[in-house]
């Protein structure tokens, strides 16, 4: 079965600083999803990567998938208090029915201090 390891497990960053979260897979990634979770709420979809070397950005968040498709990173530029939360990566794998089921990493808890 596929396993995802995220690092670091927790991160405390001063507001305005840049940061990077990593997600490493035990198998080749076919669809890699990044989600953000706030306490008491569900997961919010951020971005999805599928091609080796792919990079996507939304506002101040950039996600990359390496060429070998076994590692992804999430980079936040000029962090803000609104970026605080738990970031989860999820790897998609196909089922016999043609849909995708997700395997998640254990998450990275991000705290932004003023």
């Amino acid at each position: 079965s596929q396993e995802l390891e995220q690092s670091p497990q927790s991160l405390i960053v001063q507001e305005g600083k840049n940061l990077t979260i990593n997600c490493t897979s035990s198998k080749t990634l076919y669809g890699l999803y990044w989600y953000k979770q706030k306490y008491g709420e569900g997961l919010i979809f951020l971005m999805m990567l599928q091609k080796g070397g792919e990079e996507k950005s939304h506002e101040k968040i950039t996600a990359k998938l390496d060429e070998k498709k076994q590692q992804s990173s999430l980079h936040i530029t000029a962090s803000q208090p609104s970026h605080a939360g738990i970031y989860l990566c999820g790897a998609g794998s196909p089922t016999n029915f043609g849909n995708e089921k997700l395997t998640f990493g254990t998450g990275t808890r991000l705290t932004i201090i003023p």
Partner: protein
Amino acid sequence: NAGVTQTPKFRILKIGQSMTLQCTQDMNHNYMYWYRQDPGMGLKLIYYSVGAGITDKGEVPNGYNVSRSTTEDFPLRLELAAPSQTSVYFCASSFSEGVYQPQHFGDGTRLSIL
């Protein structure tokens, strides 16, 4: 736009009791999923459904049952609650058209078994 709605938000059960966690979505998604999230852990797939009348087991199905009689609803049943089922339960749904469709999550049900 309600998205994925889960009820109840919180529940305390006694060992051996049964209950049904409700999940409904208004996005006309064929695919629906149930996950559980234990403290400090990522989400683990319990069951999923690809349409009315079609369900399959995920990674941790023991102690749970599901049914899917309509496109909108995907309830999760706990028959004999055990302390190991104390967790946060998330329901998700996704489109069935195309590959790599992100899953949309509800806000979760926090369940304690005492």
